[in-house]
């Protein structure tokens, strides 16, 4: 019998918070002292965005237990909503404008999540996965054909064709497939850190509450959960929409840390990449997601990997395969279990 002490979950949660805070403090310190390379500095914000994405998808995959292959779609909605909001909002303070844009992005993604979730969550397993993949593709197509501009009369939008006529001083924000260009980079590492912490708090507190238990009960056994009166659709949708909102906020953080974003960025491959973070870090394991997202984002950009030149992506693929094989190897798992969890309770006596 595996015994989970309440305090143990709490310990893990606090260790996770602590680890994130420590990482932030150390990096901020190094950065202040100019001790970080441009490569690392340039990746601080994207890492926070990917960590948030991984946490958000882990809520869907690990806690709710549904496979989503279109999570980048929500990031996309958030990224473009955030970029448009940041360009349009008449707020002069950058941090405030960033915060407002992220909230708008989260809302936009949450609304999309609701629209997607209501029909989709009736499906199960691989069928649900394929439908989320489909939604990811649809969102990409829509953004690629969407034009949004701004002038002194406000926002203008058109679909499929750019029919926007500006008054003087107007400009395009979202230019269809060409995406958003010349974004003012207002995201900061601190903002990313705050977002990651917020997302962690929401996930940990949600999981350890009535709603979280209902969601996990659905994951473990839907029929049994129904039999004790858990409203399935409500809780599935709740988890899905919260997850989408987080992805939206991550999208805005990401977009506002880039000069250019295009719909292509948030395609199937990105959805898969985020799934890789979640699976590698362990389903339902939040600190695992954080580590995996960081590791796999930084890895291909390291000096050593860049030094491999043509073989870089090949080696990346091999590393990915080897890591998966190692983390799933029963012998290695046993080894970790015996080494690091010595005080595990043995099977309880049978009455």
């Amino acid at each position: 019998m595996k015994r989970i002490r309440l305090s143990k979950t709490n310990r893990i949660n606090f260790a996770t918070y602590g680890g994130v805070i420590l990482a932030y403090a150390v990096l901020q310190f190094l950065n202040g002292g100019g001790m970080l390379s441009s490569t690392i500095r340039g990746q601080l914000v994207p890492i926070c965005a990917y960590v948030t994405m991984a946490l958000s998808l882990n809520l869907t995959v690990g806690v709710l237990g549904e496979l989503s292959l279109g999570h980048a779609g929500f990031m996309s909605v958030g990224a473009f909503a955030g970029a448009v909001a940041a360009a349009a909002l008449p707020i002069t303070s950058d941090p405030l404008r960033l915060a407002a844009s992220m909230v708008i992005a989260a809302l936009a993604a949450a609304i999309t999540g609701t629209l997607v979730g209501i029909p989709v969550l009736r499906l199960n397993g691989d069928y649900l996965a394929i439908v989320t993949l489909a939604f990811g593709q649809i969102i990409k197509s829509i953004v690629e054909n969407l034009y949004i501009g701004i002038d002194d009369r406000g926002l203008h939008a058109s679909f499929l064709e750019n029919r926007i006529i500006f008054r003087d001083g107007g400009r395009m924000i979202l230019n269809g497939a060409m995406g958003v260009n010349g974004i003012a980079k207002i995201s900061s590492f601190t903002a990313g850190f705050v977002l990651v912490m917020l997302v962690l708090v929401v996930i940990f507190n949600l999981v350890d509450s009535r709603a979280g238990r209902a969601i996990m009960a659905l994951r473990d056994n839907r029929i049994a959960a129904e039999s004790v009166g858990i409203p399935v659709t409500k809780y599935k949708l709740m988890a899905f929409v919260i997850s989408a909102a987080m992805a939206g906020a991550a999208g805005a953080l990401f977009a506002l840390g880039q000069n250019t974003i295009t719909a292509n960025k948030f395609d199937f491959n990105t959805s898969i990449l985020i799934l890789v973070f979640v699976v590698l870090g362990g389903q339902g394991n939040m600190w695992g997601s954080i580590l995996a997202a960081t590791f796999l984002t930084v890895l291909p950009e390291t000096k050593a990997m860049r030094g491999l030149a043509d073989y870089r992506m090949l080696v990346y693929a091999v590393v990915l395969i080897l890591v998966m094989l190692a983390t799933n190897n029963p012998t290695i798992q046993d080894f970790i279990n015996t080494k690091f969890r010595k005080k595990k309770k043995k099977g309880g006596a049978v009455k």
Partner: protein
Amino acid sequence: MSEQQKNSYPKPKLVPVPSTNIIPERDVDKRPILECRHLGIDFGGLTAVDDFNMAIGRTEIAGLIGPNGAGKTTVFNLLTKVYQPTRGTVMIDGRDTAGKTTIQVSHMGVARTFQNIRLFGNLTVEDNVKVGLHEYTKYSALSGILRLPSYWKKEREAHEKALELLSIFDMQDMANYQAGSLPYGAQRRLEIVRALATQPSLLLLDEPAAGMNPSETAELMNNIRKIRDTFQIAIMLIEHDMNLVMGVCEGICVLNFGRIIAKGTPDDIQANPAVIEAYLGKQKEA
């Protein structure tokens, strides 16, 4: 089992109410908790249950037995709307359940366990019970995330209530174990506790003693009675262990090929030639 336990209720007398249905005499002046009329379901060409009529008194312990494949589990699935019936009606406490979902039926006071154990295997024992308490520890998801005072208050209540329920089976000590890693018998007991947590007025148990040895079974029998006595609810159980069925059930209903072939007290049933032929066999008495 001891004499005393056996007599905690006077030997039941079954009386017809309403129409052909029979329930214990003490429950007649109250509305039956469950009434099925002409209930039936077909799977493709197969008629799994047909013309099933039954009533259960408010504090009755009823048994549903029959050969394998007779349709017993299917009846439970019909009562809990896992399957929608092809024909007939199910009334819970006088209210029709037509068009209702499993979730709504649960809220109407029906709880069940499953023939193949269905726990929330990755949650702790306590959390399994707390999921059962879902309707009775209400606070919004937002106050959970923000840890508002209502969260702390309700969580404490839920914790206390969960431990109290677990204590029925002496399982408080296991509260923090992962449910999926419990021994088989404990898993079966936990399923019952979880069902009880929904505060049902009718508890359906599908083969609760399966995989238990005789002493565990004997203890289970006591507990079934204890549950009925403390919560004053009706219990309907499916079981192949005749010691248990004949020991705790007041009214027994025998299914064969989806149809009722006999109803009555344990004594009636044990003496019924059709039941012996179809189900009990010419065995040494149970």
